[in-house]
């Protein structure tokens, strides 16, 4: 497989952001912040009417896109900016494009977009390809 700057990266789609997964992440992160668990708290704080996804979950969606697009590759560096919340039940789409190719190293830019609301995360990454796995 060969790559070129400008190539689009196949999107990773989350049809419905899971409120149950937020409960798992409260355990992973040892962070019981109720805005991820209790709609009543979200409403009371004036932050919306659905539970709010933990930020690193959104980063994981974008990592999934990169790892699925480049089988066997490793992420060497990644920077993500948090622009807005992601709420339970929303459809999230991670997408991106290659910005440069240098041998087995790619740089990419990407975003996470919410259907009907726009971009909530954006970032860049450097990927090291696994050329052996790429040619299988």
């Amino acid at each position, binding site marked *: 497989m060969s790559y070129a700057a400008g190539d689009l990266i196949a999107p*990773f789609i*989350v049809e419905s952001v*899971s409120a149950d*997964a937020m409960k*798992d*992440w409260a355990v*992973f*992160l*040892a*962070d019981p912040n109720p805005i991820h668990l209790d709609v009543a708290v979200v409403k009371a*704080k004036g932050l919306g009417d659905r539970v709010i996804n933990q*930020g*690193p*979950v959104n*980063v*994981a*969606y974008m*990592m*999934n896109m990169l*790892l*699925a697009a480049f089988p066997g590759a*490793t*992420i*060497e*560096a*990644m*920077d*993500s*900016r*948090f622009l807005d919340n992601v709420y339970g039940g929303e459809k999230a789409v991670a997408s991106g494009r290659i910005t440069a190719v240098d041998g087995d190293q790619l740089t990419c830019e990407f975003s996470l977009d919410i259907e009907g609301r726009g971009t909530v995360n954006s970032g860049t990454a450097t990927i090291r390809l696994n050329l052996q796995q790429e040619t299988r």
Partner: protein
Amino acid sequence: MSGTAEFPPAPDVAGTSLDGTRVFTVSVEENERLCRSVGVLPAADGTAHPIWYYVATQVAMGKTVAGVCETCEFDVEDGPMMGSSGVRFAAPIKLGEPYRVSGEILSLERKKSRKLGIMDVLTYRLRLHPASGGEAILETDNVWVLPRKELA
């Protein structure tokens, strides 16, 4: 953003250690659960999902999020917000491998924004090392925004 002359400076916390004291290990079962929660299968090569960079460093650093906020003289109940997160991997995180965390607060800068009013921008760096010693396998810089409602 504008200048800082119209409000008091942010607490001087740069250099505060965030070195952890506990060992963090990603088990096969935890990794499966995490991967399932984000809609993918675990890797077959014994490496953990890379998002563990954030979880491992955050959980095993030397202070809780509330503790970091307290150091910055900020009440965690006032709602810290993630601004950005960056990571540089030297090696993947391996399942069953014990790690420890080192790190420090890099800066706390008070700013004024049109959207949030007066806020402190906290930047801290964490590294994940093999518990047995040696160079870090990854380094992450996280930026949090701490809205200073009391200064608005």
